[in-house]
């Protein structure tokens, strides 16, 4: 299976007071057509920055310092702004965190839909309106034709996120970057939006890069998971495998910190310490100061990526040489 999205050695730097801080450090991953890749990590781990880089929306002081981003075999990180803009919304769409602020408050949702549609597709205004109404119906908005004339403030948060989904799907993209799409919503609404997102993607074969810090969301919808820590990718693998037997100590800590409803008596596990900030990078493995299994070399040598079963793990403990010696 050829990858729809291929990110190779991505490095993003943020200039601050003349110094370049590394926000994303040598991150590589792939998303296959129709696949849902969950990207997890603490806030500040670089999840959103990665998504922003793929969309080509990095803005100064942030910039891509190294690496390549390929979409459908074509390099897109070097495209000029016009070519990238034509791709955005058409082939690669986005869903952002806060539906309350994602929509222009002064424009009807119908106008926002048709302007997106007509930017990318060669349709007449009546055809675009038709398509917009159909999209609203698909995302489960009742009386879609009447709703076209509504303004964002006339809708609830959940309804607005449905509109945002309709906007994302409006030109049948092949990849959606969903950045914390349910974080700002009520818990009862979160599941509805997730189900809708998954159903629409499965139906159309749309791939998703689902950025979230919520392991529950990942467990529910992701095919594979990429775990980020301090701007680096520490583990990538199939969701079931990661949930059952994570290879990286950080991933294991993350899994252990998911509250278990059936075990009230147990105290919630947490990882002691905190993630290093980009302005104070840690030599070797970024996780070693907090790692309960850290080896001597972890403090000086950065671990490469090792294959463990179907997963890829950036940890010296996964080194086959070390494992065979042990």
């Amino acid at each position: 299976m050829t990858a729809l999205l291929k990110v190779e050695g991505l490095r993003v730097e943020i200039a601050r007071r003349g110094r370049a801080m590394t926000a994303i450090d040598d991150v590589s991953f792939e998303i296959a057509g129709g696949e849902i890749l969950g990207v997890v990590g603490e806030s500040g781990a670089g999840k959103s920055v990665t998504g922003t880089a793929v969309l080509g929306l990095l803005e100064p002081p942030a910039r891509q310092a190294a690496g390549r981003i390929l979409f459908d075999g074509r390099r897109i990180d070097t495209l000029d702004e016009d070519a990238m803009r034509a791709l955005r919304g058409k082939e690669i769409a986005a869903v952002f965190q806060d539906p309350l602020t994602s929509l222009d408050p002064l424009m009807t949702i119908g106008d926002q839909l048709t302007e997106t549609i007509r930017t990318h597709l060669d349709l007449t205004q009546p055809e675009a309106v038709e398509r917009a109404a159909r999209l609203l119906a698909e995302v489960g908005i009742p009386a879609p034709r009447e709703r076209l004339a509504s303004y964002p403030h006339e809708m609830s948060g959940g309804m607005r996120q449905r509109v945002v989904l309709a906007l994302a799907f409006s030109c049948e993209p092949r990849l959606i970057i969903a950045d914390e799409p349910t974080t700002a919503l009520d818990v009862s609404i979160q599941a509805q939006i997730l189900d809708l997102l998954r159903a629409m993607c499965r139906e159309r074969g749309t791939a998703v890069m689902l950025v979230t810090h919520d392991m529950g969301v990942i467990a529910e919808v992701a095919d594979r998971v990429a775990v980020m820590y301090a701007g680096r990718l520490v583990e990538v693998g199939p969701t079931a495998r990661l949930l059952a037997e994570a290879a990286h100590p950080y991933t294991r800590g993350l899994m252990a910190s998911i509250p278990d409803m059936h075990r009230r008596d147990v105290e919630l596990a947490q990882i002691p310490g905190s993630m290093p900030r980009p302005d104070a990078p840690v030599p070797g493995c970024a996780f070693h100061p907090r790692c309960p299994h850290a080896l001597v070399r972890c403090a000086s040598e950065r671990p490469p990526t090792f294959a463990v079963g179907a997963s890829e793990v950036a940890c010296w403990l996964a080194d086959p040489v070390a494992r065979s010696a042990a």
Partner: protein
Amino acid sequence: MSFVLGRFGQTVLVLLVAAFVSFALFRYVGDPVNNMVGQSASLADREAMRAALGLDDAFILQFARFVGHALTGDFGMSYRFGQPVATLIAERFPATLELALISMLIATGLGVPLGVWTALHRDHWAAQALMAASLIGVALPTFLIGIALILFFSVWLGWLPSFGRGQVVEIGGWTTGLLTTSGLRALVLPAVTLGVFQLALILRLARAEMLEVMRADFIRFARARGLKPRAIQYRHALRNTLVPVVTMIGLQFGNVFAFSIIVETVFQWPGLGLLVIQAIQFADVPLLAAYLVLIALCFAVINLAVDLAYLAIDPRVRSGGGVRRTA
């Protein structure tokens, strides 16, 4: 519709309060009878005068009479000019209104586009030069700008007249200087002088608001939707920028109107400001009271206009003020 009615009610209330203040202020600042009769008038004469003016009546009755007369346009006689105040003001009003209108037109017409441009091209040298210039525009006192312009364009270059209103044409009781060449030429310097500060203010606000809006989530999402930069900047960002800018333009228009006094003095512009300066010097109470009420009326009308402009721009106001949700 209830929004409009509500705002209209508020306007009436504001006007009543303003009328009350100006009435109270001037009725009780000194004794009008003293001003009207000579030093040699007997006590009996004074009492007769007092009774004739209705100054013995209850306060509230006097106020009601003041408002009643004001509603019919009767503000009494000017002490200094011996003419009805209403006539004096009607004569001068067009000059000030034209001056204020044209200067705000210049300020808005240049300030909003330049503000938006400087926001979109923040690093361009011209944008930075404009920002520096606008700071000077905000800081310089109006009279200094006026004198400098007179020195430059009237005294040195001799291009434009330095005082007066030029030739005016009367149309249905309204005297306008906008239809004659000399009238237009006379308008340039005072209008620019009055407009410089407003221009700088509007430019800076429009720039700040535009920058703020360009950072908003919905602009980022619009970019993620692949919209063209032009559509993002003008269809989305500019409209959202306009709401606060319109408010400010409205408020500033009231200020321009009320504080054209300085410019009118510098340029001997025969408007209300000049009239009021003379009225103040001679403690011409009825004229001042009427002027105060008129300025309040202007502010109230402008605010009403701004509120109506909101209705046109912002759908959130149309649906009854706050955020309404239909889940």
